[in-house]
């Protein structure tokens, strides 16, 4: 099931990034985040979901990429963007990706999404993430399913 959901998540990331953020993406390797080369300040958010199976999706992106996404998403320039805009852009991206991906999964009961929330980036240095590459930057995603 994790493989099926991960495939749906990757499809959804492509759809959401191109439709709402005008950024085409390609998928890179699964590697520990410490080896990803994402050394700049990172923003991280997570979203829990429950249904036929439950879990969490975590999205990590350098602040520079989130600024580019926010500019594209809202049509605003950098000087008009606040930290709330940046956090909100990343959490909304995660919300759309997760909701879109779960719609692609056949389920007996509808999935329920939690509220996406910002979390600390230092918690995940040893975790293995899937790298998502944009033209000039990269982000990373981690899917965990409850036992």
């Amino acid at each position: 099931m994790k493989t099926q959901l991960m495939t749906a998540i990757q499809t959804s990331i492509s759809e959401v990034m191109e439709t709402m953020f005008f950024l085409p993406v390609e998928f890179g390797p699964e590697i520990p985040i410490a080896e990803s080369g994402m050394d700049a300040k990172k923003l991280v958010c997570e979203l829990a979901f429950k249904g036929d199976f439950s879990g969490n999706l975590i999205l990590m992106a350098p602040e520079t990429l989130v600024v580019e996404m926010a500019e594209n998403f809202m049509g605003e320039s950098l000087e008009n963007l606040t930290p709330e805009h940046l956090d909100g852009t990343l959490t909304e991206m995660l919300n759309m990706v997760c909701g879109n991906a779960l719609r692609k999964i056949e389920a007996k009961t509808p999935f329920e999404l939690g509220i996406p929330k910002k979390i600390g980036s230092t918690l995940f240095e040893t975790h293995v993430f899937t790298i998502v590459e944009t033209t000039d930057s990269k982000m990373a995603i981690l899917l965990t399913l409850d036992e």
Partner: protein
Amino acid sequence: MSYSILIVDDSLPMRSVIKKTLKAAGYGNSELLEAANGEEALALMKKSWIDIVLTDYNMPVMNGLEFIKVLKADDLSKEIPVVVISTEGDASKIREFMDCGAAGYITKPFTAEAIRDLIVTILGEVDYEDAVDDSDTDFDF
């Protein structure tokens, strides 16, 4: 024709995107009000006349479904059309919204055309001159 349109979403960027979409769709002369959840929206609706509500589902404090139920239970607000804009697009969830009185449903990610077409269906066509001439407004997503 201008309207009073209430956008209910806990995401500040999403409210901003929906506002820009509405302006580009010809509702630039309309009053565009915002609330971050159902409770805020209900408080605002006690003070302002609203022609249509666009609401998210998944919000803290009071979610979109709870909000619609309260709205539709009140004689003063039950006729106000409510459109749900949400990531959750499961057929049974959409049916639940419609059974509670929602006038329409749009899934995120959405296209500007989807929002415009549904609002036009509910409120009627707007004069093209009402559209905001804003070169920064990207209407092509």
